[in-house]
């Protein structure tokens, strides 16, 4: 009953309509992408593909542990990049299981997820400022900023959403400790820790705590003791929370271990580093080539918003109007906090000209894993700026109630000044002028005494004012974006076996983002065209083997591959297995009926039927890993490392069924997944039963009167 009444009150709350309408307007603005006529680009494409593969496997009741990318590799990297334990993917899987096409589910889920993240920002802002309308305005600025465009060209939304909710739960918890906010903090922290570089989040949290301690020392101590007493009175809950956090770290720990063992390489990250460094490490010069300041400078080339593109930091023009209203608002310690917090990350994002990055890089071990310092711009600087603006707007709205002429004159002067500034620009767009005028009308109405209790109408008004310019800007973005002319990888992959590599072109000169070390070694030591020709058939059958020398004789291997000789190179061989064929050339399997038929090609498992007249070594041109297991007709057999990088199985003559399975960490991953879902369920339960959900607070984490 409580849940139903809560849902009812949510639907009838005064800001429900502005929120829903803003979502609808956002969808309208990005309709080209949402309905599939415009193409996803850059990293967003690989995330789209990976989500498809992950949810495909979830539909089959398992997690995808082996990826077909780059000739095959453990899927750890992609699981971590996605944050595969996020319930978002369960929702996507459930919707797909209801028969909704993948792309529709994906794009709407991402749009909804971004909206959810911005709602987290709204609650955070409301919790801090205590002003619903001001928080709504901050929400609208953030929601209609370029952050939302990153769904279609990047993946930063996947971190942004839990980050916003984490800070909401933390602030909520320290305002008035509750189980809900504690579990919320733990759950969002789990999501953030299970990303492949959790240090971004940890560093943001660290800086947040340091500046809290510096700016609000007394409060910080108070809240620390409050946390201690909460722990003391909720020992079991806190212990469970701690365990859950440790569990969330497990996949990342495995991944970092694998990186340190040199099992995989990431050439782009690894550039300029010696071969002994772990694959995830990045040379500071690589990091410094593009940081926050470059993102800002790049955006500055596009002051003509008709040229709007992806990765441009666009904020609605009202941001600048509201920021300039700082002329009227009183400086507070909270403003100082925002300034220091965001300013620190801005300084960090100028690594080539300011010493902060170099200083920290030399002292903090995880700085070597940061490649994209500009992420801080989107995850910290932008939201903090909108938080500051919401705070300022709250003050302004409070001041306007007094109806002082001075305020009205300053408001008018500021709007005129911005109009003047805009008219001086040679390339302004009409909606900028309209939004300035609407802003003036909006604030004047408030000054004239528009009842701020009628938040619904003001909220709707705010939505119109704040979305006027973004609508035009996103229209230009759509016009400048590429149409979807080619199918995405996941759509093409149906045409052939999922194990075939898609990345390699005919020249063989492909640069992998991530690949198993052995594949890259092979690629680097063979002429590109030979490597390409060798890798064309998925299955190859050999009658002779040759033991590899140490070090490998690359000329011999190259000649053998070039001549397509019937010799497979192996590191060791079981003497009981005999090969007897005399054919000179290897036998590529180019289709059914040639001795190998694929029976099933499921996530982490491949089953083939073989029928040979003599014993053969069946080589599957997919990367070898010692964690692959094989059986022939149910009897376990050995998987050889064939031709330096691939999987080989000795198959006797006659008709047999060969099964290859990859089950590395399957049960651990299932356990981790179960813990994530349990904490999420607990969060839902406590959120729906907590009376204080999103209500006002007595004592904020950020003191109000300072």
């Amino acid at each position: 009953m409580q849940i139903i009444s809560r849902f009812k009150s949510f639907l009838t709350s005064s800001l429900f309509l502005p929120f829903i309408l803003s979502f609808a307007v956002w969808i309208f603005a990005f309709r080209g992408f949402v309905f599939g006529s415009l193409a996803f680009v850059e990293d967003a494409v690989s995330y789209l593909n990976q989500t498809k593969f992950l949810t495909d496997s979830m539909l089959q009741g398992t997690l995808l542990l082996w990826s077909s990318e780059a000739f095959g590799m453990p899927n750890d990297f992609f699981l971590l990049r996605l944050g595969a334990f996020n319930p978002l993917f369960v929702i996507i899987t459930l919707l797909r299981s209801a028969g909704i096409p993948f792309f529709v589910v994906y794009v709407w889920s991402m749009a909804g997820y971004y909206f959810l993240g911005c709602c987290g920002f709204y609650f955070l802002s409301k919790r801090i400022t205590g002003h619903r309308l001001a928080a709504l305005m901050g929400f609208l600025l953030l929601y209609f900023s370029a952050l939302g465009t990153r769904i279609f060209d990047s993946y930063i939304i996947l971190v942004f959403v839990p980050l916003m909710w984490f800070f909401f739960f933390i602030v909520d918890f320290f305002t008035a400790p509750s189980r809900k906010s504690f579990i919320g903090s733990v759950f969002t922290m789990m999501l953030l820790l299970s990303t492949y570089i959790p240090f971004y989040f940890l560093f943001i949290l660290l800086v947040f705590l340091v500046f809290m301690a510096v700016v609000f020392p007394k409060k910080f101590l108070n809240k620390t003791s409050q946390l201690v007493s909460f722990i003391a009175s909720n020992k079991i809950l806190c212990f469970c929370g701690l365990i859950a956090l440790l569990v969330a770290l497990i996949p990342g720990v495995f991944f970092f271990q694998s990186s340190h063992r040199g099992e995989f390489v990431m050439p782009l990250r690894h550039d300029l580093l010696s071969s002994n460094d772990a694959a995830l490490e990045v040379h500071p010069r690589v990091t410094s080539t593009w940081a926050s300041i470059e993102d800002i400078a790049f955006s500055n080339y596009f002051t003509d918003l008709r040229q709007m593109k992806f990765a441009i930091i666009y904020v609605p023009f009202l941001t600048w109007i509201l920021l300039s209203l700082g002329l009227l608002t009183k400086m507070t310690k909270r403003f100082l906090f925002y300034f220091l917090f965001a300013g620190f990350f801005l300084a960090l994002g100028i690594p080539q000209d300011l010493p902060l990055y170099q200083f920290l890089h030399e002292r903090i071990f995880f700085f070597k894993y940061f490649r994209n310092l500009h992420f801080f711009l989107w995850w910290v600087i932008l939201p903090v700026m909108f938080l500051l603006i919401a705070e300022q707007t709250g003050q302004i709205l409070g001041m306007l109630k007094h109806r002082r002429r001075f305020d009205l004159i300053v408001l008018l002067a500021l709007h005129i000044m911005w109009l003047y500034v805009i008219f001086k620009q040679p390339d302004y767009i009409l909606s900028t002028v309209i939004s300035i005028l609407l802003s003036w009308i909006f604030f004047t109405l408030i000054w004239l005494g528009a009842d701020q209790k009628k938040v619904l109408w003001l909220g709707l008004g705010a939505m119109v004012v704040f979305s006027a310019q973004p609508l035009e800007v996103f229209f230009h973005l759509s016009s400048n974006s590429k149409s979807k002319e080619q199918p995405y990888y996941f759509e093409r992959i149906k045409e052939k076996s999922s194990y075939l590599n898609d990345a390699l072109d005919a020249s063989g000169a492909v640069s992998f983002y991530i690949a198993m070390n052995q594949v890259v070694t092979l690629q680097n030591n063979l002429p590109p065209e030979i490597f390409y020709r060798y890798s064309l058939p998925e299955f190859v059958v050999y009658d002779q083997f040759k033991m590899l020398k140490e070090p490998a004789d690359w000329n011999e291997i190259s000649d053998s591959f070039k001549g397509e000789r019937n010799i497979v190179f192996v590191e060791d061989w079981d003497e009981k297995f005999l090969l007897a064929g005399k054919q000179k050339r290897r036998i590529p399997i180019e289709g059914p009926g040639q001795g190998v038929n694929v029976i099933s090609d499921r996530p982490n498992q491949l089953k083939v039927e073989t029928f040979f007249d003599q014993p053969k070594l069946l080589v599957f041109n997919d990367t070898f890993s010692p964690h692959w297991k094989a059986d022939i007709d149910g009897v376990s057999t050995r998987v050889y490392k064939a031709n330096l990088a691939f999987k080989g199985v000795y198959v006797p003559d006659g008709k047999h069924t060969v099964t290859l399975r990859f089950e590395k960490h399957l049960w651990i991953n299932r356990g981790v997944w179960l813990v994530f879902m349990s904490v999420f369920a607990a969060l839902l339960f406590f959120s729906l039963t907590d009376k204080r959900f999103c209500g006002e607070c007595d004592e904020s984490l950020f003191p109000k009167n300072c």
Partner: protein
Amino acid sequence: MKAFFQKIVRSSGWLFSRAGFFYLAVFLAMGMFIDIEKIWGNARIRSMNRIMPLFEDLASNLVAGKSLTFDQWQEYALYYQKISELIPADPGAYFFLGYCLSHLNREEEALSNFEKAVQKAPGVFWFEYNLAMAYYKKADYEKAGEFFRRSIDSGAAAAQFYMRNSTLYKQVLASALRQGFDPETSFNASFAHAHIMTARCLYELGKYDQAIQLAYYHLRRGLGAPQDYYYLIALSLKATGKLTDMMSVLQLLLKHDPDHLGAWQMMREFFIRVQDLENVKRAELKLEYLRKDGPDVDKAVRQQKLM
């Protein structure tokens, strides 16, 4: 007086306690300790990398006349536009921008950018030649002729010096050289074309006698393909009504280029006029063949060149 000072102090206190004042103070303080201009300038230069296109296609367009898509031209135009904003003193940015815009059929903007390039670096053959071509397309033959003459006077030396030292040129040149581009051959062709075009401008201005004189003069000096001069002379003779002379010139032209579309068209018109039906039929058959495979004479006249 005291009350006045108190008011001043109160107002100052109010002002200093404003957030806006704090923002301003922070910004000014930053300016004192950090060279913001330098940081910003460096970042802008580094951020150009993101919009820098691959120059292979532009080079292919130059070397092998590969036609680029609208999107590709737009991408190049955007890059050069941003370069021109970033380094407004670089004439090459305006020149390349003008070149891309002309391929996007934005002729007016192209012309204005070529003008800027010429203003900033007078005496560079390619800048003046392309500006002249832009004027020619605009049918401003007076100015076109002037700039063709100026480009001829500028010659090769300044153009070569500029190309060797311009970063923007080097970006494209590196790719072009890989694709077998020969700068000298390209220059010679365009230099000769500039000579023909000076005469062509006179023709377009209705100064037929001068056009004929100039064409013969250049022809004697051996600058460019004779058929182009003969064609221009024939056009001028036709315009002055000297049709018999025109036919003699066309005969000479066809010796050099038996498949000259324009020449066959003029001959057909002449045969119709004198009612030589047999030759009309012959010319029509030839024209039918040439229209399928022959060159577009006018298009060649309109062609812009990068280097």
